[in-house]
């Protein structure tokens, strides 16, 4: 990591290849979303709720494993009021015989039980969640565009919003391709990825800005390359620590957070990649120049000689 700066790894040398890969991934993801769609979880689709009464209090773990063994893949088993009453919720709906099937499966273990009721249940997520969240996300992207545009420069605004869309679309593409269950935890993961990827992108962009102001000579190509090189140790370490947590969650966390961890693992990998090959790449394409980042004249030419001074109050910290 501490190689001489003159021998910076030629990150931008791969930018054409990376662009092709990104475009293929995004287009494929959109196509997959259109063709296969997402496999929404019970939170979104609703299902069937079956209430059972056991003669003797059952072990819920056993109830779960019998259901899993019988081939049901998305279900929730919980005690309902008393320890002999069990509520089973399944993603399947529109099957009148489901309750009888469940009862038979569970009776097979020699348990004595009685079917109390079975009813269709609706989605846990209101329509307003979908609408509000979509709108909130669009507005959030717009505000990022404006904020980064003001704080950096308009081209940087674009270069920080496009990678976010890129990352989210690719994660959704994976979920569509493998038909992994998309539930509320995955939605939360998507939001976390947006936060993570944005953070990553801004750190790289910040260094690019700093170097443009500091280095009086050099082509944008070299400056961007050097900036990525200088931040790569940080990028790898931050992604590394985050991935360590996520791998622990994925392998040991059990099925309840499997898909959450999976979405984040893809998100962190894609997000790290996109902060270099989508964001910096876009800056190259849009032709960012030194003039774009010059500090306004009233701060004086002296100000642009050095990198941006931290605020005065910081020196007191």
């Amino acid at each position, binding site marked *: 990591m501490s190689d001489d700066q003159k021998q910076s790894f030629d990150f931008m040398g791969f930018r054409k290849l990376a662009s092709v890969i990104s475009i293929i991934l995004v287009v494929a993801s959109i196509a997959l979303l259109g063709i296969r769609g997402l496999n929404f979880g019970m939170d979104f689709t609703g299902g069937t709720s079956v209430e059972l009464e056991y003669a003797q209090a059952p072990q819920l773990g056993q109830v779960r494993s019998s259901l899993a063994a019988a081939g049901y893949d998305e279900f929730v088993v919980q005690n309902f009021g008393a320890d002999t009453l069990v509520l089973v919720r399944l993603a399947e709906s529109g099957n009148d015989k489901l309750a009888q099937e469940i009862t038979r499966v569970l009776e097979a273990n020699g348990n004595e039980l009685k079917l109390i009721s079975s009813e269709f249940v609706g989605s846990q997520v209101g329509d307003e969640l979908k609408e*509000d969240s979509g709108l909130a996300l669009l507005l959030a992207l717009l505000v990022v565009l404006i904020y980064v545009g003001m704080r950096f420069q308009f081209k940087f605004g674009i270069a920080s919003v496009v990678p976010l869309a890129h990352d989210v679309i690719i994660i959704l593409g994976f979920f569509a391709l493998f038909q992994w269950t998309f539930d509320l935890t995955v939605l939360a993961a998507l939001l976390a990825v947006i936060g993570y990827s944005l953070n990553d992108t801004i750190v790289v962009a910040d260094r690019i800005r700093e170097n443009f102001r500091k280095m009086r000579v050099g082509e944008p190509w070299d400056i961007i390359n050097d900036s990525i090189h200088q931040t790569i140790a940080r990028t790898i370490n931050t992604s590394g620590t985050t991935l360590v947590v996520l791998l622990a969650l994925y392998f040991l966390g059990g099925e309840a957070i499997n898909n959450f961890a999976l979405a984040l693992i893809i998100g962190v990998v894609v997000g790290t990649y996109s902060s270099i090959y989508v964001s910096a790449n876009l800056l190259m394409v849009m032709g960012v120049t030194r003039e774009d980042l010059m500090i306004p004249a009233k701060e004086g030419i002296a100000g642009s000689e050095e990198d941006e001074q931290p605020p005065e109050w910081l020196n007191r910290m």
Partner: protein
Amino acid sequence: MLNKYPLWKNLIILIAIVVGFVYALPNLFPDDYAVQITGARSSTEVDPAVLDRAVKALESEGIEVKSSMLEDRDALIRLTSSDDQLRARPAVQAALGRDYLVALNMAASTPSWLRSLGAGPMKLGLDLRGGVHFLLEVDMETAVGQRLDAVSGQIKQELRDERIRYRGGDVDGKRNIVVSFRDEASRAEAFSLIKRQYNEFLLDQETNGGEFQIILTLSESEVNAIRKYALEQNLTTIRNRVNELGVAEPLVQQQGADRIIVELPGVQDTAQAKRVLGATANLEFRMEARSDAPSSETEKFGFRDEPQRTARLERELIATGNNVANAQQAFDENGQPQVSITMDSVGGDLMNRATRNAIGRRMAVLFIEFRTETETKMVNGKPKEVEKRIVDKGIISLATVQSALGSSFRITGLDSIPEASELALLLRAGALAAPMYFVQERTIGPSLGQKNIDAGMLSVGLGFILVLLYMLLYYRGFGLVANVALTINLILLIACMSILSATLTLPGIAGIVLTVGMAVDANVLIFERIKEELKSGASPQLAINAGYSRAFVSIVDANITTLLVAIILFAMGSGPVKGFAITLCIGILTSMFSGLMVSRSIVNMVYGGRKVEKLSIGGKLANV
């Protein structure tokens, strides 16, 4: 002096850490099973005598009472087990009667010295702990009936406008409106009028004892549409109400064709939730009847706070609470509680049209409440809870119309501030399209199995430890500093979430650990900068100073941008998205504090103010 914090700055950091630690502490104490008692109306208070009766009832049932406590407006009785809790609720309800609501709850066992500081634990979500499960049934007959009443009113109005003489026009039996006419000509005229406007009805003509009748019957598909609409509208309203109550991570879903499940995680104000969820309070605005009005067009109502006083009102409604766009609790000039109401455009028009020609007459605001009362009856020798449905209609204000009303006005005549604010909440969250009744209340176990919870917790703990190890191995001494800062970050995050009494679900916990993973970023940025500075030949002291101050810009830029996203998601999102946004906001703020201030403070204490030859920051730099 370079790299030396003044004492006051270290003190501020120390105080923040101590406060954080204290507020995070209540999470170490487990919750108790409890039943909560509150007045059935928000103006009814629970006094020591009531609590005493409840405790006596439990003792006579042989249920062990751990402790009982009177709080602001309600009482909490702690019990030792969930079985006791289930038996206790009907026992207490029977002893107290219908003026009080008894609800299952979980109570935090935070020691009193912590409670006196306002500290309390985070709540565990439905997936980890379970909670309280309510099943509500939508009264579909009333939904259909209300629709028929409305149509019958409209038809009568139109017939009057067209000067067609009619008789009847009221709802008959279940789904019919029967209008009678004296001759066939008026019937034919009315028939074409009705047919044009009400195509959701099946029309029939009959001649009955010299009367020419039109019978309007609601078609089956229309009945289904009304039911569907009522259920969807109620689902939306219930979601709004749960959100207005500030219950985090609830579950609201449809069950079957006419029922709604509401599940709330434990340690919430379940009694208030129950009252507000079930409250089908609505308002009706009606004119007082003229003294010469025929009795078929008037109805007599009592006043809500003095039932013996009555007034005759017109049957016809001006508008209802469904036309309310916004409602806020406020005070009038005498300091009495009132509700300021803003009607939507339709409501404003209706109000204006009705009051324009009625200056000097009196207008009544009718408060309508649908409630259930639980009665314990003996069925086959076993006590069985029977829900009885009750509709209360009472006048809350009868005031002279001084001038034509528009879309904004105030309602006075409410008993108390809680009542006014609850009415405002109910109007704001939207009226229910049809009344609802509680049909079931149960505790519900965690939706995740113990195995899943254990695995989740294990992976979260392990993930955190792995991050600490990674940092320690890579950055050595500075890694240790980062680890202390990260741990403090975690404590502060938990403290903030406890103060906000956020609800913790398994993905939420994973999210917290993830913010920790991301909080590492600030330290990594700083340490890499310090390394760069060292490499370019700066002395250790200068490198530390420059590292912190140069990384500052990146850290602040990156975090503020992310914070903006989190704030927008919080302001506009709903349900789980909102909850996630709060965690993200707090996580960003605490990680900035710990990454910039806490770690700097420790580094200053270790290296500051003395001559340093070498920094323990790992990598090849050790021999620079």
